[in-house]
C-alpha cells in the first residue's frame, strides 16, 4: 500500500524518486516514528518532499490516500512483525505495567490475542471494551484506560490530531507550477559567461610565479592575479503592461536568476513598447524616469540587451507617434526600437507567450521584424536559443562598436 502512495505522489506532481522512498522505508524500519499518523506524516514528508512549494501537493495526496488515518494504522499494525510491536510497547510501559501484562498471560499470549482480534475486527471501533480502537478499555488501542493496554499510536492530545495537520493545508500559497525554475534559468544564462580578470589580485598565478622565480635565479617571487569573474554585461528591459500580468512570476524568476548570475546587470521597465522614457521603479513610473537617450549614452554597445515582453498590443502603439497608451510620444515606437537595435548589436526579445500563438497578433510580427527576427519564447529551449544568439554576436568583438569598451582587462571567451 505504501508503494501505491508513492506512485500516487508522483502522479500528484510531487517529484519523489525511488531512493527517497526507500529511505522512508528505512526510517520506518529503524523505528524513527512511533506508530502515530501524525509522526508518519511528518516522516514521510521529510523524507520525500524537498521543497516547501510541494508541501501542499503532498498534503492533498496524503489526505486523499489515507482518508481516516486511524484505519490506516490498524491496517499497518496487522502487517507488523511481532518483535517490533513488543519492543515498542516495552519502551512505552513502566515496570509495574509490564508486571500487569503478565496478568493477561504474558507477551506471547497478549500478542496472539491481539492478532486474533485484528482478524475479527472489520470496522473502526471506539469506546468498547474488546475491540482494538480508541478510547476504550480493551487492552489494545489508543487513549485507553486499561493498565494492561498496549498503546498503539502516540496521539499526544485529541486536539492536535494528525489528520488536521495535513487537512489544514497551510502550505497552499507556497505551491506554484513553474516549469522554468530559477536554477534552470541560471543554467541557461550561464552560456553568456565571459570570464575576465578584474579587481584585486588575490589568486596565486602559478605559471607567473614559476617564471618569475626562475628569472630570479631560484629565489621565490610570488605573483598574484585577480580572480576570474563573469564579465558579461546585461541590460534587461521588462514590459510591465497589463497584458504581462499572467507572466509576472516567470519574469521575476528570470530577473532573480539574472541578478545572481551577472555582476553587471541593469534593468529598466517599459509599458508595452519602449519609447523616449523608461523607469526603474514601477511605483514611481511617472515621477522618476530615465530618458532613453540617456540610456543609449550610458551603456556601451558591449552590453547585451534582453527585452522581455509579450509584444501584444495595437499596431498603432508601435507605428504611430502618440500611439502609447499612457502618454503622448512624439516619435513612434518603431523609431525608438530602431535606435536601440542600432546601438546595441547584441539584442534579443524574450516572449512569454507560446511561440505558436505569435502569428495571430500583428504587433508580435512587427516587433519581431524590428528586432531582426531575434524573438524567442520564454522557455528553457527558447532561453537557450536566445543565449546562443547573444553569444554568436558576441563573437564579433573588435567590430566597429567595441571602440567604446572601457572595461579594464580584456574579456576572454573560455566557455
Amino acid at each position, binding site marked *: 500500500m505504501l508503494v501505491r502512495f508513492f506512485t500516487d505522489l508522483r502522479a500528484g506532481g510531487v*517529484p519523489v*524518486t525511488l*531512493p*527517497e522512498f526507500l*529511505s522512508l522505508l*528505512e*526510517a520506518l524500519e*529503524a523505528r*524513527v*516514528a512511533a506508530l502515530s499518523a*501524525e*509522526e508518519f506524516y*511528518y*516522516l514521510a514528508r*521529510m*523524507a520525500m*518532499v*524537498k*521543497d*516547501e512549494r510541494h*508541501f501542499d501537493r503532498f498534503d492533498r495526496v496524503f489526505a486523499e490516500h489515507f482518508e481516516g488515518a486511524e484505519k490506516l494504522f490498524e491496517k499497518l499494525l496487522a502487517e507488523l512483525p511481532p518483535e517490533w510491536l513488543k519492543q515498542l510497547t516495552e519502551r512505552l510501559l513502566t515496570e509495574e505495567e509490564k508486571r500487569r501484562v503478565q496478568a493477561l498471560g504474558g507477551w506471547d499470549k497478549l500478542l496472539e490475542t491481539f492478532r486474533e482480534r485484528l482478524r475479527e475486527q472489520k470496522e473502526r471501533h471506539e469506546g468498547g471494551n474488546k475491540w482494538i480502537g480508541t478510547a476504550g478499555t480493551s487492552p489494545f488501542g489508543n487513549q485507553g484506560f486499561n493498565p494492561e493496554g498496549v498503546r498503539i499510536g502516540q496521539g*499526544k492530545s485529541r486536539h492536535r490530531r494528525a489528520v488536521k495537520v495535513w487537512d489544514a493545508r*497551510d*502550505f497552499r500559497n507556497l505551491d506554484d507550477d513553474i516549469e522554468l*525554475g*530559477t*536554477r534552470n534559468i*541560471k*543554467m541557461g544564462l550561464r552560456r553568456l559567461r565571459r570570464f575576465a580578470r578584474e579587481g584585486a589580485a588575490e589568486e*596565486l598565478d602559478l605559471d607567473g610565479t614559476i617564471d618569475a622565480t626562475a628569472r630570479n635565479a631560484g*629565489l*621565490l617571487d*610570488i605573483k598574484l592575479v585577480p580572480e576570474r569573474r563573469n564579465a558579461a554585461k546585461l541590460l534587461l528591459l521588462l514590459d510591465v503592461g497589463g497584458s504581462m500580468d499572467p507572466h509576472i512570476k516567470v519574469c521575476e524568476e528570470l530577473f532573480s536568476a539574472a541578478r*545572481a548570475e551577472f555582476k553587471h546587470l541593469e534593468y529598466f521597465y517599459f509599458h508595452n513598447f519602449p519609447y523616449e522614457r523608461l523607469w526603474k521603479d514601477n511605483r514611481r513610473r511617472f515621477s522618476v524616469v530615465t530618458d532613453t537617450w540617456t540610456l543609449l549614452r550610458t551603456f556601451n554597445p558591449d552590453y547585451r540587451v534582453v527585452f522581455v515582453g509579450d509584444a501584444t498590443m495595437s499596431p498603432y502603439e508601435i507605428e504611430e507617434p502618440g500611439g502609447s497608451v499612457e502618454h503622448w510620444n512624439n516619435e513612434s515606437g518603431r523609431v525608438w526600437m530602431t535606435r536601440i537595435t542600432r546601438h546595441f548589436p547584441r539584442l534579443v526579445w524574450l516572449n512569454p507567450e507560446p511561440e505558436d500563438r505569435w502569428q495571430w497578433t500583428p504587433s508580435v510580427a512587427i516587433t519581431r521584424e524590428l528586432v531582426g527576427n531575434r524573438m524567442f519564447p520564454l522557455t528553457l529551449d527558447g532561453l537557450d536559443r536566445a543565449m546562443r544568439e547573444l553569444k554568436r554576436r558576441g563573437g564579433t568583438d573588435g567590430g566597429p562598436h567595441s571602440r567604446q569598451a572601457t572595461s579594464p582587462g580584456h574579456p576572454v571567451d573560455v566557455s
Partner: protein
Amino acid sequence: MTETRFTGTDSYVATPDLMMAVNAAVTLGRPLLIKGEPGTGKTQLAAEIARALQRPLYEWHIKSTSKAHHGLYEYDAVSRLRASQLGEEKVRDIRNYIIKGSLWEAFDSNVQPVLLIDEIDKADIEFPNDLLRELDRMEFFVHETRELVKARHRPIILITSNNEKELPDAFLRRCFFHYIRFPDADTMDQIVRVHFPNLKSELLREALASFFEVRETPGLRKKPSTSELLDWIKLLLAEDIPPEALRGSDAKKLLPVMHGALLKNEQDVHLFEQIVFLNKRAGR
C-alpha cells in the same frame, strides 16, 4: 550513555515535527536540510542539538566565494614554497602544509559530532553537487598525500538554506528536508517564556498581541521574526516599560514602543503608521 533523542532544550523550543526530523536524520545518518523564514532559529538548531546530545559542534559558514574543497582541506603551497627557500626541516613532509577543513575535522572526531553547513545557498550553484560523494559515503581522497579520509562516526549534518538559490535535485535526494514554519501564537508564547522566564504574563500577552499585529500588516517588506521579537522584549524589559504602554488605546501613539527592533526600514514604519491610522479612523 549519551542521549540519542532530541527533544528541544531549556533554551530552544522544538515543535514535534522538528524533533521528528532531527531524530530521523540522527538515526539514519542523513544530512538534514533546514529551510524557513529568517530568524526562526535555523542556525541555532545545530548548536542546540550538539548541546542536548552532548556532541562536539563543527561549523562551516558558507560565503559566496566558498568552494567545496575548503571544507575538506587546503594545501598551502605558498608557505611550503617559502619554507623551502629558508631550508626548514618540516618542508619535507607535505602533511605539514595540509590544512584541515571543518568537514575533515568532523570526520576525525572521536565521538559522533554535529556538523553545521550554514547558508549553503550563498555559494555557487555547483557547490552542493561537489559535496555529493562526501555526504553520501562520508569519505574523501586527499590527492597530495594519497590517503583516504573516512568518517569515524557519521556526523549529524545540518544544512541551512535561505532559499536564495535552488539546490540541485541530486543533492536534495540525499538529504532529509524540514521547513521551519513561523511559530503560531502558542509556540511563540512558549519560546518567549523559555528566554524570559520572569516575564510578567500581562506584558507578554500585550507584547505578543502587538507583535502579531505588526506581522500581519499587509505589504511589509520585512516581517519581524522570532529573533526580533526576543530583542524587542529584551528592550522592553531593560526600559522597564509597563504593559499598559503597549496597549494601543492612545490615538496619538500609533506605533508600538521601541518599534525600531521590529520594523527595520523606514518604508515599513511609514506603511504601518498609515494602516494603523486608517484602522483607528475606521473604528470611530
